[in-house]
Structures are given as structure tokens and as C-alpha cells.
């Protein structure tokens, strides 16, 4: 389905990003596994992809740093020569109440979760415009739609990603590049395991499908958005949240 396509997945060493990288590879894509800190985990993902008979490389880059991103794109092109799919997944949380939130907690989250998406989008656009085709999939969050106390920075960034998705979709549509966002709800990962048990129980009550999501619930939708079947969709945000926000 995605045979010989090249996909870059940011923040792909674990969690949702890892699952996305593996799913895209399962569908035939060669994958650039971007990571910022955990080289060993990134290499595990690379090995797993190679064992499926696809190509993969791990590339360290801080998405909030334009130079890092530029170097990642150069490396990608030197190894694979095309960039067909970009999944902007890298993200962090620094939760705090607004009254207690420090400036660097705000800045770090905005820089990685929002500016990082801009940096990577800008960097792949040249190649995708030349190719006259491309798929950009941005990982937002359901809280970017609904809001969430204690996550003003994260919510602002994720809502920003939805706006950025729409603008890039309109700018790039004429070059056959589609840009869509996904908004996962509560997905079980390292990031959500940190939440207190009572918070988790409270969230479960709000999910009509009555379970937390798994990374594979998200990556299957990303694989669809990257596929030929999603060719007439752009600028959309798909909620993958068990019905939490309708």
C-alpha cells in the first residue's frame, strides 16, 4: 500500500510515534525514526522495521531547532531520495496550573509541540512541492479541541496545531500535498501512565467506548491518512478518542 514511500515520524522512539512508525512500515513504507533523547529505544524501532524487510534509519533531532530539522531532512534525502509522508508526532507535557506555570514550562511545550510542527512542515515542503505529492499528518490532541485544566501550555500548542494544519492544507493543496491532523484522546503510553489513578478513573467515565485507547488505535488512522484512500481529505482533524468529544 505504501510500498517504497519514505515516511519521517518525529518522536518515534516510543509511545504513539513508535506505533505509527511500525504501522507505516507494516504497510510498506521506509521510515526515518526521529528521536531526541532515547537512542537505544529508537534503534529498537529501527531494528523491528528492518526485520519486516523495510529500510529504516534513526535520526536524532530536536524538532524545536530548525537547524537540527534541516539536517534531518538532508540525511533523509541522502538515504531515501524522496519524502512522501511526514508525521509530526513529537511532543512533551509540562503540566501545571496557570497560576503556577513557569515561563520555561510554557515555552518548552510551545517550542516542541507547536513550533516543532512548523519547523518540520517548512523543511519538507520544498521536497514535497517538487514531487507534486506529499502527506503531512499532525498529531494534535483531543484536549486541543476541548481544553483541559492544568494543561494550558499543552492545550494551546495542540489547538495551534489544528490551526496550522488548516493553513498548511490551504497553502499546499495546489501542489497535491494534503495536511490533516489527528486528535487522540486518552491513549495508554508512558506520557499518560504518569497521571494519578483517580484522574484516570475520572477520564474513563467520559469515554463512551469505555476503555482507554492503545497506540495502535491511533497509528491505524495515521496509516489510513497516509494512504491513497485518503487522497481527497485535507485540513481535517480526526478525533480518535472513543467518543469522548463529539
Amino acid at each position, binding site marked *: 500500500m505504501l510500498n517504497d514511500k519514505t515516511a519521517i515520524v518525529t518522536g518515534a522512539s516510543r509511545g504513539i510515534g513508535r506505533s505509527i512508525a511500525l504501522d507505516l512500515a507494516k504497510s510498506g513504507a521506509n521510515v526515518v525514526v526521529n528521536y531526541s533523547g532515547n537512542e537505544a529505544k529508537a534503534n529498537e524501532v529501527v531494528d523491528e522495521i528492518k526485520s519486516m524487510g523495510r529500510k529504516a534509519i534513526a535520526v536524532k533531532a530536536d524538532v524545536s531547532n530548525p537547524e537540527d530539522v534541516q539536517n534531518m531532512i538532508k540525511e533523509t534525502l541522502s538515504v531515501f531520495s524522496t519524502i512522501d509522508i511526514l508525521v509530526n508526532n513529537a511532543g512533551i507535557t509540562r503540566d501545571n496550573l496557570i497560576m503556577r506555570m513557569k515561563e520555561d514550562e510554557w515555552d518548552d511545550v510551545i517550542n516542541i509541540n507547536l513550533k516543532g510542527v512548523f519547523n518540520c512542515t517548512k523543511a519538507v515542503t*520544498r521536497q514535497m*512541492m*517538487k514531487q507534486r505529492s506529499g502527506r503531512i499528518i499532525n498529531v494534535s490532541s483531543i484536549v486541543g479541541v476541548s481544553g483541559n485544566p492544568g494543561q494550558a501550555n499543552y492545550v494551546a500548542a495542540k489547538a495551534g496545531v489544528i490551526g496550522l494544519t488548516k493553513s498548511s492544507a490551504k*497553502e499546499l493543496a*495546489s*501542489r497535491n500535498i494534503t495536511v490533516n491532523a489527528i486528535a487522540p484522546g486518552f491513549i495508554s503510553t508512558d506520557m499518560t501512565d504518569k497521571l494519578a489513578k483517580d484522574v484516570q478513573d475520572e477520564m474513563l467515565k467520559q469515554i463512551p467506548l469505555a476503555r482507554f485507547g492503545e497506540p495502535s488505535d491511533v497509528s491505524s488512522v495515521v496509516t489510513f491518512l497516509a494512504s491513497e484512500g485518503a487522497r481527497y481529505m485535507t485540513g481535517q482533524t480526526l478525533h480518535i478518542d472513543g467518543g469522548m468529544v463529539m
Partner: protein
Amino acid sequence: MADTLERVTKIIVDRLGVDEADVKLEASFKEDLGADSLDVVELVMELEDEFDMEISDEDAEKIATVGDAVNYIQNQQ
């Protein structure tokens, strides 16, 4: 000059699908040759590749006509 103009003209004709006769030095990409903003960005990208040079965003913004492009390239070489 002639060579640069020839190469620039070829790129413009290919990219914008205009008639070679319309690609005059004073022709504006947007007003005379029907380019939109993204077309101009792409033209600049192709000129970079063709002439093996980097054109900064600041300089690219000043390139509005065929003549601007040809002059810019010649000044850089």
C-alpha cells in the same frame, strides 16, 4: 547574459506554461505571467538548483520580474 536569460526563460516557460515570447525582462511573474505566490517560491527553488546557488528569503522577496531574476543571478556569479 544571453545564456543566463535563456536558462531562466526555459525554467519559466516550463514552470508557468507561458509562451516564450511573453517572457520579457520587464515581465512581472505575478502580474504578467500569471504566477501565484507559491509559483514564485517554486521558481526561485528551481533557479537555485539550475544555477547551483542559494537565494535567501530576503533576496527572493525582491525578485518580482524576469529581469530581477537574471540580474540577481549574474550579480552572484
